[in-house]
């Protein structure tokens, strides 16, 4: 089947098997490898994307259900060559190590701060509880998000 959707502001079509996951199609058909496959069970959040305003693990989304949707992946967050303030804050605070989880954290942060520019710490801890980071221990990420919450950006 052919699926058509808007990804990062651009209309894209892909010939897919309807049972394939959105993650597989993003990575293997559309050349958007920024979303990562680390567990394929919706546990780690490395494949997080925003679909019609919802933050989803793209490994759990059947691509056949995505017809006509609007999707944001990590590749669509920066403004051209300039990092988004979320990305800049994570970079400045040292929130990137191996970076495999980073796209998922960027997406979850974009989703969170779009809905609530000033979340408190407990709200942030809950919001990111579906994103596993194995390297940083989350401290630098939380400091970045604290900074963003204070700035209200």
């Amino acid at each position: 089947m052919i699926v058509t959707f808007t990804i990062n502001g651009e209309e894209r079509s892909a010939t897919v098997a309807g049972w394939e996951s959105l993650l597989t199609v993003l990575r293997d058909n559309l050349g958007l490898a920024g979303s990562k496959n680390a567990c394929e069970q919706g546990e780690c959040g490395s494949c997080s994307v925003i679909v019609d305003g919802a933050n989803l693990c793209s490994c759990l989304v059947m691509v056949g259900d995505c017809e006509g949707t609007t999707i944001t992946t990590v590749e669509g967050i920066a403004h051209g060559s300039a990092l988004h303030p979320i990305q800049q804050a994570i970079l400045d605070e040292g929130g990137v190590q191996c970076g495999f989880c980073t796209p998922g954290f960027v997406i979850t942060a974009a989703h969170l701060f779009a809905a609530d520019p000033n979340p408190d710490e407990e709200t942030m801890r809950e919001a990111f509880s579906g994103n596993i980071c194995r390297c940083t221990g989350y401290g630098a990420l939380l400091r970045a998000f604290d900074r963003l919450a204070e700035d209200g950006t």
Partner: protein
Amino acid sequence: MTVGTKERVAAGIGESAPRPDGVAKLSGNFAYGSDLWIDGMLWGATLRSPYAHARLVELDITPAVVMSGVRAVLTQDDVPGRPTFGQVEQDQPVLCDGVARYWGEPVAIVAADDQETARAAVEAIIVEWEPLPPVTDPDQARAAGETYRDMVIRRGDADAAGSVVIEGEYETAIQDQAPLGPEAGLAIPDGSGGVDLHVTTQWIHIDHAQIIASLDMEPDDVRCHPVGIGGAFGAREDISLHIHVAMLALRTGRPVRIVYDRTESFAGHVKRHSARMRYRHEADDEGRLVKVTVDMVLDGGAYAHTSHAVLANASFFTVGPYKCDNVFVDAAVSRTNNPPAGAMRGFGAVQVCFAYESQMDRLAEALGLHPLEVRRRNALGPGDPMATSGQIVEGSLPTLRVIDELEAIPMPDAAIPDDPRRLPGGTGLTTPKDAVVRGVGFALGLKNLAFSEAFDDFSEVLLVLTPAGLEIHTAAIEVGQGLVTICEQIARTVLGIQAVAWVSADTSQIGSAGSTSASRQTQMTGGAVYEAAVGLRDKILQQFGGDELTNDGVYSGGELVATLDAVTADAPIEQWVRYRHPPTEEPDEFGQGNPHAGFVVAAHRAVVDVDPELGLVRVVQIDTAQDVGKALNPQAIVGQLEGGIAQGVGFAIMEELILEDGVILNPTFTDYLIPTLLDMPDVGSRLIEEPAHWGPFGAKGIGESPTISSTPAVVAAIRAATGRPLTRVPVRPQDIAGV
């Protein structure tokens, strides 16, 4: 000539310079092993043993071979060269040799046009097994003489006796590194019999040596290229799919890609050894150690991998950062049918730290001393002999200072929080807040730096100065820890040159940088960069008659005598080094001698809230004082400390691979629990700078320390809160609730 920090260079040592790969990683543009793609490539898949121990009765690949889209199906008979691999002992078959010795052991490999076909072909292979009884008890294996190595340490007087005796038995379970990036490789035939292999690794040259042996090929015909790594923590120190993917590419003449899924990843890499440790500490009335007697067994699983070195670490660090004149250790690492064990962050020092720190707490309690006071009275320092080997501690070892600095970190608010989200179990908590109890625990940990026991440990670096700046050519592997950043910082500071770039070299271009493990790369490849940079600078100054090199060029007496463009006008200037740490020795038959190149120490304090009825724990805060030698990049160090603590917290209260008859029951992220942001405490860090006796600017490797003593600190805090003995990690709810 001395090296000073030049004011004109930014992002030199001591600064929290940002990662050069940060922007690409934040934008989704960084290429990891699992992102590699080349048009026309085939997809590989692996048939694995469903049993921990079984005889292969029948293996018929015909149904897979005849499938449309299948290009190759290979078994052990197809291995061109040495049929086995391994870093120390070459004992693991590349593909099953007729007997499967662990669950998930590779049996056959397939290359096909797409992933679905490759997986379907694996399913189509006819395989019949005769299950055999698996050996799963490491004590039983040891009793039967099935060990990879036995260690004996005999130091001092066996008749020495203390007035206080503490005996305990401790157990640590299997922890998995669980790096987020899966094992991945892409092999591309070069059309003339050779192959380029792009593969996830921690040490590309040790892979290369094993790969060419099994492929029966010349070194230059197999070029191994490092790729982007999504975490490692020891999981990539041994071969996984490397030989398989190269075999498939060479057989088909086409590029082949293999990427493990999460369950395959759990099956496909070595784990932290589980351990059983029987300890007897004897001390005098003041709490000073008189004698320590230990018997322990580690479970090495089905193949040797790095078990030899892990056992050595467990044995040499069995007393911890403490003085003791009489030490007697009998230790073994057993061969069983459990998953092969190997390297994981802390590498043998983790298991014993849980045991010796539990013992030190009980000693303190027996004497009515504060837990830190008994540690102060026994603290090992520079000039002291190691309790086990007798090696005199050279250079810095600020054991007393890490204790003092740890105590100086403010404690969290003493009140149990009102917000249910901050209580054990979170909003699912059914226990009233009043029933929640708080505890505080402490632990210290000791680790060796770099490789030990006379291993020829080195790192090669080639620096190339061009008009565009400096290039660092190396095969050292960045796994996320920040090696690239600090090597660039070192080069900038020594040379005064701003533009520095990392060039990841393959095995045909440069010699080994050694392993990204054993807390070694900051000192080893960092040390190589330092030494090469000093050589390059001196060469330039001599050639152009200058006394100072800066980003502008060569100065003499404050006058610019040659710009950088002029310096490199004729040709790039190069400097190659092979850097070695001070030599170490093979210990004698009683473990005596000088097996280590240096030591690093850390201290942790954990504060926990516990629901004693449901056995749930929330770690409130962990603080650490870390011996760093010299902080080359403070932000990166804090990132390592916090990340290592997260893995230590995981091992204390949730991370465990559960086996039944050698089969892993929880090889997914649904069932193998890793701390999330909800589980992770606040962390307070103090960096103690007392320069090491070798390495760049006195820096020490700190990657492992945070994982070593954070675990026993958490358990000590749970003990303090509950009064339970807790002799096993991870601590399970039933251990706390007593059911």
